[in-house]
Each structure stands twice: as structure tokens, then as C-alpha cells.
């Protein structure tokens, strides 16, 4: 069952103190650790055994499903293919995430390839946290991919967070939006040391009145590096906005490339991007309230990544 490290990782990635109520699937070191299904939400292994299929019945409201992954086996690079089929009119929360604990010199990694098929008028909130811990010298790699297909009037809100310990991450987000659908993505990444994180986002607005808002908040500390690429392509009368902000500290390096492609005359696409140090007026304000310089920096970053 769960040892102390597992519990710590589960708490970090899925805010779980114990086994969740309702459906869940916990994967540990490349294998199923525990699974629970409900009458409304089914979880089963896929045909080739490389992942799971989560099926939410149409019209299911206010239910949640947890599918965290934990890794603590040196040398293991776990790859999993998960599919989510969300029935029409459903409204659910999916809590994913991966926690790696590296205690030795062997590298550890996880690639979660998630495909979402979101039915008409359905809404999902998808939360994915990535954390790596441990004093080991092995490299911790997390390469998540999400592919999202939104049917008519579907809504997907994605919160993607990577706060600490991950040496290398390459995230790919792809989405195709049907008529009237909406995709809101908020990505928060903090890197430090020599960590590297790359985020590639390709969103296609296919249906009339579809809309997307892609928000990226990056904090790049010490000698770390983050690259953020966002492409929004509008093939219909639609709305898209990209907002990417990066705070650079120490010797951090960042490349941010927002790209907008309007292939329809009624498309409305905007972006705003800023890269820079913490604003001096923010620091001075907090210090004038009695915080030290370091406390002020910490408070600003916590807010920025909140």
C-alpha cells in the first residue's frame, strides 16, 4: 500500500491525505496500485494495457475523479496513455498529476499522454500538478501531453502546475474547439537550479463562436530555462487570447513566442507578453509593510503563481 513517501507525493500532486472518496486510479511505479469506480464514472485499463479509459456518463454533475501517478523506482521511465470520454452535459472535475521521488542516482521519468473527448455542453475542470522530490542525483523528467477535443458548447478549464524539483519537462497541449466551446488554460511553472521546462501549445478554433484563453505564468530562478510557445489558429468566427508573463531571477533564461493565425475574417485574436524582473515598486510596497526583501520576493512569486 502507500508508504510515507507515497503519501507525501499524493498530498503534493492531488491534495490527498488518504484514499479519495469517489472514483480514482492510483498508478505507482508503472503499475496499478488501487482503483475505485462509481456508477457514473467508470475507469478501466485500455486494450493494450498502456493506460486507462475514464468514461463519464452523460449528465453527471458535480463529481470528481482522481488519477494521480507516483514514481519512486530508480531507472524507471513510465509512459501512460489515458483517454477521457466525457458524456454530454456532464460537469466533472478531474485531478491528475505526477509526483516523482528520486532517492538514488538512477534517472526517473513519466510521460502522461492524455486525450480528452468532451461531449456537447459538457464541462470539465482538469487539474494537473507535477512535483519531484528527493535528494538523489538522478534526473527527474516529466513530459505530459494533453490532447483536447471539445464538442459543441463544451467547456474545459485546465490548471497545469509544475512548482518544484523537475529537472526536465516538455509539455505539449493540443486542442480543437467546436462551435460555442471554450478552453481556458492556466499554466504555472517554477524552475530553479539547472532545470529546463518547455511548453508547446497548439490550439485550433474550428467552430463558430469558440473561444480560448491561454495564460502562462513562469518564474525562472538561478540558472534555469523556460521556453513557452503558444499557437492559436482561428478557422472560424472565434476569439482567442494568449497572456504570458515571466519573472526572471538570477541568471534565468526565457523565450516566449506567442503566435496568432487568423484564417477567418471575423476571428479576434490578441496576445500580451511580458518578461522581466520583479517590479521594484512591488518590492518597495511590501517592504514598506514590514516584510524583508526576501519575504517580499517570496510573497510576490507565490501570488504570481497562485
Amino acid at each position, binding site marked *: 500500500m502507500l508508504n510515507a513517501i507515497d503519501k507525501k507525493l499524493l498530498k503534493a500532486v492531488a491534495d490527498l491525505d488518504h484514499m479519495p472518496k469517489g472514483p480514482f486510479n492510483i498508478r505507482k511505479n508503472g503499475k496499478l496500485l488501487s482503483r475505485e469506480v462509481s456508477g457514473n464514472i467508470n475507469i478501466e485499463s485500455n486494450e493494450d494495457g498502456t493506460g486507462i479509459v475514464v468514461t463519464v456518463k452523460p449528465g453527471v454533475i458535480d463529481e470528481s475523479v482522481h488519477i494521480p501517478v507516483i514514481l519512486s523506482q530508480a531507472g524507471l521511465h513510465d509512459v501512460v496513455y489515458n483517454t477521457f470520454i466525457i458524456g454530454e452535459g456532464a460537469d466533472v472535475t478531474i485531478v491528475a498529476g505526477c509526483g516523482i521521488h528520486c532517492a538514488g542516482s538512477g534517472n526517473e521519468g513519466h510521460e502522461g499522454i492524455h486525450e480528452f473527448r468532451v461531449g456537447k455542453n459538457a464541462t470539465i475542470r482538469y487539474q494537473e500538478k507535477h512535483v519531484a522530490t528527493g535528494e538523489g542525483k538522478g534526473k527527474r523528467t516529466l513530459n505530459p501531453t494533453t490532447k483536447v477535443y471539445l464538442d459543441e458548447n463544451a467547456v474545459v478549464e485546465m490548471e497545469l502546475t509544475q512548482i518544484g524539483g523537475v529537472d526536465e519537462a516538455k509539455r505539449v497541449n493540443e486542442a480543437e474547439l467546436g462551435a460555442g466551446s471554450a478552453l481556458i488554460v492556466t499554466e504555472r511553472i517554477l524552475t530553479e537550479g539547472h532545470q529546463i521546462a518547455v511548453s508547446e501549445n497548439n490550439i485550433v478554433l474550428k467552430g463558430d463562436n469558440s473561444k480560448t484563453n491561454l495564460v502562462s*505564468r513562469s518564474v525562472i530562478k538561478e540558472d534555469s530555462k523556460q521556453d513557452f510557445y503558444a499557437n492559436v489558429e482561428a478557422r472560424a468566427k472565434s476569439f482567442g487570447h494568449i497572456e504570458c*508573463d515571466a519573472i526572471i531571477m538570477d541568471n534565468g533564461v526565457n523565450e516566449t513566442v506567442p503566435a496568432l493565425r487568423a484564417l477567418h475574417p471575423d476571428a479576434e485574436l490578441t496576445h500580451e507578453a511580458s518578461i522581466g524582473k520583479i*517590479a521594484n*515598486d*512591488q518590492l*518597495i*510596497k*511590501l*517592504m*514598506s*509593510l*514590514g*516584510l*524583508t*526583501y526576501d519575504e517580499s520576493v517570496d*510573497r*510576490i512569486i*507565490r*501570488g*504570481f*503563481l*497562485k
Partner: protein
Amino acid sequence: MLELKEIYFTVPDKEAENGPAEKTILNNISFTFEKGKFYGITGPNGCGKTSLAKTIMGINKATHGKIIYNGKEITEMSITDRAREGIAYGFQHSARFKGVTFRDLLAIAAGTDDEGKLMDILARVGFCSLDFLDKPVDSTLSGGEIKKIELATTIARHPGLAIYDEPDTGIDLWTIEPMVKLIKRQITDYETTTIVVSHNKAFLEAADCLVLIKEGQIAYTGDLEGAKPLLSDLSVCRYTDLCEGEIDAQCYR
């Protein structure tokens, strides 16, 4: 309470034609602010009012001179340490954050996130509604709203010395009078020594003492009546009948 002794503040003169040079912003300022008094600092644009206020708070570092607060020299102290000594500052141009709410700032200022205590502060401030508390302090706030936050976070610290730099900027005319009353109530209840940098008639009339700055030096200290001729002569502020009829009649501009 607060003594400024021969304060100079200089900055590099970027417009100097003959190589590196310095520009004197504050030129030998000496003055004592007494406990529990209300001081209005005024003067023409660019005369050094804000520079003086920032030098007291430690945002500007005095090039020469001494600053003594409650008998302790604070000239070399950081902003943080001055704040912890009991000096609070309401900024003319307020910082905007991402992911920080008014509640967050107020809790830092008050040193507690206790809901009841934060509510007490709001009640005291009066003009901040409860739903205002969870607003993010970002670019969605109007200039007036963020100035109210400045005032509230200053009040929340129960400072021995409160400095307000142009607190009326962006504030609607209906709010100025309550703002003056609040500042005066702080003085009455807590003996807060108060310095307001302003051109605003309401603040200058409420002050016990005006400090008129001209070209980095103190040109006058005393009551408003004595200052009126100087205010007009300096073209800083007009205190004439003409001013009364203007839309911006609240200001001595």
C-alpha cells in the same frame, strides 16, 4: 519625534553637458516633526516633496545628513526596518500585483489575517466596502480604488508616523473629506504624526503646519494663512478667488 538634520539628496544629472555631474534634489533640509501633529508638505512640481517623503521612508537614501526617529538614528536603516520602527507610507503611484488581493496586503500590513480584525480596519476606513476585500490589486482597479487601498494599508499598521504622498490622486471629490477626517481621527486616537504631501486644499487646511518646499529647500513653515502669499508667488498654488470658481477648485494648482 522625527528630526531631519541637514538632509541632502543628490542624483546623477543625466542632462549635464560637461561629463558626469550631480543634481541636488534636497538641499540642506532640517526640520523637526512633532508627535501627533498633522503636517502638509506642498510646493511646485519637481521641488522635492516626494523625494523628501521617500527619504524619510528610506526609499531614497540621503546623500548627507541624519534622520532621527524617536531618538534613534535611522538614516542607514532599510525600508523594512523603518516600517518595523513604526513608519508607514502611502504611495503616490501604487504598485499593482498579479495574484495578490487587497485582503493579502491588508493582512501583511496588519500582521494578522484574522477576519474580525481586518473587518475592524475596513470599518474604520469606512469607504472600502466588504466586497472590495477580495479584489486583486492589479490593473483592473481604478486609480481611485488603489489609492483607497494605500490609505487602508497605511492605517492598518497603526504607525507612529504616517506619510501619505498625494493621497487624493484619482480619488473622487466625495471621498476626500472622509479621507481627511480619517487621517485626523488617527491623530486623535493614536497620536500618529502625519505627513501629507499634497496640493489639495482640504489636506492643507486640515494641517497643523505647512512645510513649503522650493527648489529642494524649505521656503516656509507655519500655518496656512502665512503661506498663502508664498503659494501664489511661487505659482505653485493659487489661493485667490479665481481658484474657487474652477472645476478643480479643491486644488491649489
